[in-house]
């Protein structure tokens, strides 16, 4: 426990001395501001044009940021040799991975908070911004996307030998999860019999945290009706308070399993290495 905390604190310190973190922070804050400026409406509540655009821009930017920061942090440990040093000490792999995750999560959440904070304050000054509920829902969305993809990033960082490998895998995963997802599913499920499509789409959505978070947020913003009669029961269920708890549970399970996979691989390499 104490080891985990030490590793997390070290990670936060490393994270905030990393120029990458600041360039991402600047980029994210800039994006959030631009969104508010192009919004002529002044005030945004619920699922509308500007929230839809915001969701998509966050989906373009945040997963990539999380994947790069997270995976680079792990490959750096290998490349710089600091892991070799650490592994001499009685630090369990679990403490190491969880410490890394917590530290990086703090860095990412600070980046997200800075973006949202700037947007909230400057938006108020400029008379254009999100209503409180929408603001909080988008904040929760961004945080969940960041936390999901950070777990994937740790797995990438575990598997990759160096930064370049990590970069390649991260970009590939980002592309498939964000942009390639609908084309891929439409192409693959097109071969399936008609009644299989809806259950398969539902099932596969649980595998893609970007889609899962986006759909959850769309429903919570009140836009569930647009997802059509096929998913009516899901929508009704997610809108209740229980839906939020279930989403949190799924997120926890999801992140836990990916981290367990990362731990497993890391541990094996440690024993062999």
């Amino acid at each position: 426990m104490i080891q985990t905390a030490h590793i997390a604190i070290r990670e936060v310190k490393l994270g905030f001395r990393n120029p990458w973190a600041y360039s991402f922070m600047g980029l994210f804050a800039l994006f959030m501001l631009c969104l508010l400026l192009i919004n002529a409406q002044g005030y945004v509540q619920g699922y509308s044009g500007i929230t839809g655009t915001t969701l998509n821009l966050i989906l373009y930017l945040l997963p990539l940021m999380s994947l790069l920061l997270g995976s680079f942090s792990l490959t750096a440990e290998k490349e710089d040799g600091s892991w070799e040093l650490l592994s001499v000490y009685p630090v369990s792999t679990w403490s190491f991975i969880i410490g890394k995750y917590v530290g990086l999560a703090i860095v990412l959440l600070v980046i997200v908070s800075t973006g949202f904070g700037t947007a909230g304050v400057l938006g108020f000054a400029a008379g254009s911004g999100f209503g409180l509920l929408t603001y909080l829902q988008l904040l929760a969305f961004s945080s969940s996307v960041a936390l999901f993809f950070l777990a994937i990033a740790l797995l990438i960082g575990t598997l990759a030998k160096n930064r370049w490998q990590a970069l390649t895998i991260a970009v590939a995963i980002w592309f498939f999860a964000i942009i390639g997802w609908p084309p891929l599913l439409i192409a693959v499920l097109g071969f399936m019999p008609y009644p299989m499509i809806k259950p398969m789409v539902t099932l596969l959505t649980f595998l893609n945290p970007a889609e899962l978070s986006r759909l959850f947020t769309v429903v919570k913003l009140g836009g569930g009706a647009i997802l059509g009669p096929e998913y009516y029961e899901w929508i009704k269920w997610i809108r209740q308070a229980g839906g939020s708890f279930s989403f949190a549970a799924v997120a926890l399970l999801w992140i836990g399993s990916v981290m367990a996979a990362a731990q497993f691989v890391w541990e094996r390499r440690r024993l062999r290495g």
Partner: protein
Amino acid sequence: MKNVQKWILVFLLGVLSFICLTPSIKAEDRARDLQSLINEAQAGATIILAQGIYEGPVIIDKPLQLEARSGEEVTITNNSDKPAIQINADDVALTRITIRDEQIKKQPTVLIQADGVLLDQLQIHTGSFGIKMRKANHGEVRNSSIVWAGVVSNRPLKLSDKGNGMDLYESNGNTFYGNTVIAMHDGIYMENSDNNLVEENHFERLRYGVHCMYTKGTIIRNNIGRLNITGAMVMAARKVELSNNQFTKQSENVNSQGILLFDAHEIMIFDNHVEGNRVGLYVEQSTHNRITNNSIVGNFIGLQLLDAENNTMSGNQFIGNVASATSRNSANNTLDGNYWDTFQGIDLDGDGKSEISYAINPFFQSLVKAKPGFQLFFQSPGMVFLEGLYQSQREQWAVDASPLMKPTENVRFVISKHTLQHSATIGGLLLCLSIYLIYLGVRRK
């Protein structure tokens, strides 16, 4: 002696029971027999009702005016299966009367089977249909309210338990002005009924606010609808005017829309404000309609054109919708000079209209028609990307030939706005927290 005591006791008990029972007899007396009042009145008479509760059902079969004495509350209750008030004679007028008819049943609360009937300032609490008109022409319902009051005890209430607020069949030339209909099935349902005027009514939490079926010459003007499944449903109708209405927040149901046209022809839709609905304006299998100068704002989908032909659309403003427009099989429409905020045009000759056209991408609509399961991808980043790639058979897309460069006027937003202060406060706190954490991270011990 004992006998006397016994008799006194009996006497006292008798007096006591008399005192106790008398009020209940009086209460029954208060539910006055309205029917005999009506029977006794002469045709053309005006009956002024004194304050109190009157018992239905009542049948009016001669021209009469029934009104409450001004400032007094007159209530007609009905616990039977029959209509609370049945009007069989022409030129009957009812004014300022509350009707409580809360039992769930087939028969409506007010049944009109005559011409020239006026209902003014009625408060109807119904467990059935509010007002049913059968072959009733040239009547008027104004400044009245119809509210659902039925209770189903042993199971959850279904939408199909409810009747329509106002239900017309083969009834022409009626006026509905300034009424409020809440939580019923449809607000006004018109079937085979022509030339009715629906003006300045308020429709809330209904299935459809205004519902036209096989009607002609209906005018729907200055109404407000909110939180219904659909604001105005115009089906199998001709020559309907739909103007200056406001339909907001029809977004909860998977079949919600602000205004829906299906098999509707020669309809004029202008100056309406449609905000925050699932689909703002939905046009399917409809032809020769003129849709002009409407504001379609902040809906999930602004315009949905499906198998629609020969319609004209101009001067409409599509602002802040998640998707401005979707279409399928709707190439032969004349779209011209609308404003689409998601479209970036180029104006070379300075006439305020873009020289490049705005084409409505049919990809997503065709995809979900074939495989509804993919509806989940609505406006997902990958789907937006894919739509951008899809450019085949562009000549068969619905196209706005010269979209406007700017919105024509300041578009109003009617859905209530709260302050930005709260999110700014949270934002400020987040910012402070972030800066503090960064400071902790960066500082050397």
